[in-house]
């Protein structure tokens, strides 16, 4: 499994945001994208998951497992994304939030099992019927990540995933995220502005 | 179904009679004091500056224009402000005045002058809602000859008693387009049974206005007068007749006719004027009106082609008179009388009879007029589609006004889907 960015240029209103970005992320790896706000970090993520507004102009290729994603609509790309906001759906229970992400081909009993397993993985067994608004910040973040992973993405994008958590929660959640990525062998691209978040100092793209 | 009907009837009768008993005394005495003694000149003087709210059906451009003309005239001549309140149904005016009376609004009523006849007049008269008698004291009334035109004082069998002044004459006539008829190679039906044949031949192209529309109900009465074995019964109050026996030929006829009608008789146009554009477009082949000159004026206003003509059934058609009356609680009775007097004058009547204006036949009798006045009428064009008095044939008398409600209820009970 690998995510490859080849010669990515993005410009807006004639102004170049990203210039010839090249990068290869292998399964289980986390490549960090660092830079000040407005440097085009979010545009890069939007480009990969297919939600870049039409006003942006880009060239280059995004390749996931040998397939060029450029012309696929967002929902066919199988790229999971984790925002700094947890964005749990308030009209669904915790369990339903997780089940929502599961692919359609699982049978009903299997869906149940997978949801339970995900809850075990994030040490939240028994929370299935809970209203998401009752959870703590750390719990919400974990459920949110499990939900993304349950959709079985072939790559994971992390958009400042830790910036809204307080310092104590931050390190434990960081640990949890990287562990999940490693054990599932998914390529991951993480946007951050905090040096401390970076798991592997050698794999960093610095944008100006 | 019959049982339901009669229970509605008795109920409403009871309610109405209770109402009358409670209030009739007051009105009776009040109206006696008025009128008679006051000389006309004084009424004219008092009328100056008064405002008259004239509640008249407002669905016709020609009629509205005519009333506009009258508004200018009475303003110029008498300083009266005439305001045309365009109503879509005169019965709503009756119910409003009635409601005002029972609510104790004995003066400053919202209606000063109303265009009325038949059932609505009977209802107002019986409930003591009318000012007067005044009509026969109007100077212009001298032009009316009740001998020649009996319906000018007898409104659907109900004596006018001077509580309303005649305004125009009406007779049911049918309208058709000669051009369309020659293309379809057909001729107008001459009686009820020919009409049925006509409808069978031209399925979906015949209809009539939805009762209780005035013309719609008149059409029912016309059929009833033609079909019932003893039409004489119709002239008496309905309570004196065997309603079912008298009307059963009508229902048998309609049961046969309705499936042949426009939209299979499931629905009907709201009134006779709604038939006009349908006739114009050829959506239907026959229209009907209570104004013999209507077709001519509709040609003049561009609503119908120049090839339309009118006809009547061989045995004659129903005719009547429409009137003007003043509600009891009007504050402008003087001005209302002056307006009525003007509308009844040879000048206003002749203007009204002009098919380019409205084409409504006059209530005045030529024998009562002087030479100049008569000339106003003889100079009028007849209008291309208007039948001469001879061709209009026999005028059938209207059934007693009490038949109206009964017929309408029975029709509703049978033909509402």
């Amino acid at each position, binding site marked *: 499994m690998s995510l490859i960015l080849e010669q990515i240029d993005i410009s807006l209103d004639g102004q170049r945001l990203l210039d010839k970005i090249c990068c290869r992320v292998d399964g289980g790896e986390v490549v960090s994208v660092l830079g000040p706000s407005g440097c085009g970090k979010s545009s890069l993520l939007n480009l990969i*998951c297919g939600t870049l507004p039409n006003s942006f102009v880009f060239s280059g290729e995004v390749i996931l497992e040998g397939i060029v994603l450029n012309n696929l609509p967002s929902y*066919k790309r199988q790229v999971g994304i984790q925002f700094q906001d947890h964005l749990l759906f308030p009209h669904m229970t915790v369990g339903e939030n997780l089940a929502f992400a599961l692919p359609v081909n699982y049978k009903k009993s299997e869906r149940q099992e997978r949801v339970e397993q995900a809850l075990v993985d994030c040490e939240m067994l028994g929370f299935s019927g809970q209203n998401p608004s009752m959870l703590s910040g750390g719990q919400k973040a974990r459920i949110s990540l499990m939900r993304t992973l349950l959709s079985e993405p072939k790559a994971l994008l992390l958009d400042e995933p830790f910036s809204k958590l307080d310092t104590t929660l931050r390190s434990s959640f960081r640990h949890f995220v990287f562990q999940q990525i490693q054990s599932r062998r998914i390529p991951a691209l993480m946007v951050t502005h905090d040096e401390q978040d970076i798991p592997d100092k050698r794999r960093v793209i610095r944008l100006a | 179904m019959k049982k339901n009907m009669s229970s509605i009837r008795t*109920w409403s009768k009871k309610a109405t009679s*209770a109402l009358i008993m409670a209030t009739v005394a007051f009105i009776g005495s009040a109206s006696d004091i008025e009128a008679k003694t006051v000389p006309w000149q004084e009424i004219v003087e008092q009328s100056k500056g008064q405002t008259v709210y004239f509640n008249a059906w407002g669905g016709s451009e020609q009629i509205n224009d005519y009333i*506009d003309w009258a508004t200018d005239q009475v303003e110029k001549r008498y300083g009266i402000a005439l305001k045309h309140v*365009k109503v879509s149904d005169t019965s709503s005016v009756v119910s409003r005045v009635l409601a005002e009376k029972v609510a104790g609004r004995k003066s400053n009523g919202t209606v000063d002058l109303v265009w009325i006849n038949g059932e609505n007049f009977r209802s107002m008269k019986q409930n003591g809602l009318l000012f007067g008698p005044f009509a026969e004291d109007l100077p212009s009334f001298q032009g009316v000859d009740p001998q020649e035109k009996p319906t000018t004082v007898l409104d659907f069998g109900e004596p006018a008693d001077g509580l309303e002044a005649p305004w125009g004459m009406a007779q049911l006539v049918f309208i058709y387009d000669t051009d369309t008829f020659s293309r379809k190679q057909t001729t107008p039906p001459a009686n009820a049974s020919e009409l049925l044949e006509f409808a069978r031949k031209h399925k979906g192209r015949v209809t009539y206005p939805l009762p209780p529309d005035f013309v719609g109900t008149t059409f029912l009465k016309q059929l009833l007068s033609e079909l019932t074995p003893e039409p004489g019964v119709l002239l008496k109050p309905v309570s004196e007749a065997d309603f079912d026996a008298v009307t059963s030929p009508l229902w048998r006829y309609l049961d046969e006719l309705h499936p042949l009608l426009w939209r299979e008789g499931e629905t009907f146009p709201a*009134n006779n004027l709604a038939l006009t*554009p349908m006739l114009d477009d050829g959506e239907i082949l026959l229209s009907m009106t209570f104004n013999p000159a209507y077709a001519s004026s509709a040609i003049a206003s561009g609503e119908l082609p120049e090839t339309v003509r009118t006809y009547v059934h061989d045995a004659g058609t129903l005719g009547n008179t429409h009137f003007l009356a003043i509600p009891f609680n009007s504050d402008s009775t003087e001005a209302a009388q002056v307006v009525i007097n003007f509308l009844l004058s040879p000048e206003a009547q002749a203007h009204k009879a002009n098919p380019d204006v409205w084409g409504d036949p006059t209530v005045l009798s030529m024998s009562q007029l002087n030479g100049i006045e008569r000339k106003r009428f003889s100079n009028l064009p007849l209008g291309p589609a208007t039948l001469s008095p001879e061709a209009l044939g026999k005028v059938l008398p209207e059934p007693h006004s009490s038949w109206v409600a009964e017929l309408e209820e029975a029709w509703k009970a049978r033909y509402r889907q």
Partner: protein
Amino acid sequence: MSPLLKSGKWVSSGAVSSLLALGLLVLFILPVLAGVGSIMLPAFGYMPVLGFETFSFSSWQMLLETPALIQMLGLSLWTSASSTLLSLILAFGVICFAWGTPFWHKVQRWLAPLMAVPHVALAFGVMFVLMPSGLMARLIAVFAGWSFPPDWQTVQDSYGISLILLLVIKETPFLIFMMAAAVVQLPVSDTLRLGGSLGYQSGVIWLKLIWPRLYPMIRLPVYTVLAFSISVVDVALVIGPANPPTFAVQILQWIYDPDLANSLLAASGSVLLLLLVVSVIGVFYLTEWVMSRLLRSWLVNGHRGRFSIFWGSLSRKAWHGLVMLFLAGGSALLVWSFVWRWRFPSLWPDWSLRSWERAWDCMSEPIVNSLLIGVTATLAANTISVILLELNDFQQQQSKSAGKWLSLLTRGAMYIPLLLPQMTFLFGVQLLLLQWGAEGHWLTVTGLHLLFVLPYCFLGLSGPWQHYDQRHSLQGLLLSRSWLKTFVQVKLGVLWRPVMASLALGFAVSIAQYLPTLFASAGRVETVTTEAVSLVSGGNRRLIGVYGLVQMLLPFIFYVMAFFLSYWTIKNGCFARRLNS
């Protein structure tokens, strides 16, 4: 910031302001409740005003014996429920496929004119297009070689399809407008991104993730549409079935029957209509409740959606169809108003200015009345709305819970006249007016209009007021030390556009009122709307064209004026663009 009252020494200003707000609400709600109340006794035979002084059930018995009662009730139910559901589906379809795309801007451009056009004018226009000798049939006739109009049931059909169609054209833009106002409070773009990354198509994201949160926010507007379409009379008279008519029309016919006993029947009928509205709303609520339970497993079954494109283009087409019909209707009115002769199947009429010339004299008074009533009602409604909103804001600053309670109460009160069937409480109000002899004055008519204009203005303004950042006013107050100056120059300045929009909306609502005008005017105060409806009975298409067009243009002129004023201002005698436009 709205210290309308300087904080008193003995009485807290909070208590005074909430009392003031409550007083205004009571003044507003009283006529509505009095109207409903005054209908109850007559419904059971007691109406001393009209001489009925004993209680009885006889009017109910009469009601039950009315020919085709069930059909009429069924017709009302069917037309209102299906038109509401269709509008709701269409509105949602448009929102979810247009949101965030260029198409959305096009939709938005049409919302204001579609909402501003009075129902009756639209009904005339649609009638001219669809009727058997209308534009559509004429176009077909050219190819089919017809020389006579077909025996179509395209208007006033007995199933009420044409009435439903008209209501859909009119209500869909309103629901889109309400949905758009609600949707901005939801994290739509994040949800769409997230849903897309989970593999969901956007249509399904709207359906499974946004709709369940959106619907509760527009529930009340949906119910107002429902209540309105059950008790609407003017449109039903023009384009609805006639034999039998819808139940509301039947009630109006009873009210205007010369036999006063039918007033009791009308009263009982009005109560029945109220019951009908309550039960339909109840059914809608129950359905929502059941659906939200039954569909939970569907929500999480993992289906990502198919046919998204199909549904997208379908709702786009439906919207285009709706706009086309509106435009065709408007053009048909325009054409007919200049027609001399235009027989079927001709496509090209003989032109004439006659209808305008003849109508012009008679129209000046109704137009003046409409303007007088509309402008007065709109100004009053917006002033009261702003006062109420300011009092709410003030209360909110005094005490969070009391403020919340007050604003909930205000909102609720505003919805009452929109949720109750007009026929029911207006008939009751008319009985009261009759007793007081207050009928027939333009101020009375304006007062009744206010019952409908005020809620729309208030609800329209409450969103912008909520989103207003109070810190602007705080800053202004610190700098100017005058709350009046702050309110006028800062708050009204910031909220200028919504206020202009609300003025235009209020006027449009007033112009469209038929029953309130009819009941309060006693025929003496004629507006273009009452004139237009009474003209239908005459069937003169040229005149209908003229009146329909004028009725359409009046609110439109106000929209244009409001639009202009919200972008431009006069500075030193020249037009200048407003900064925050």
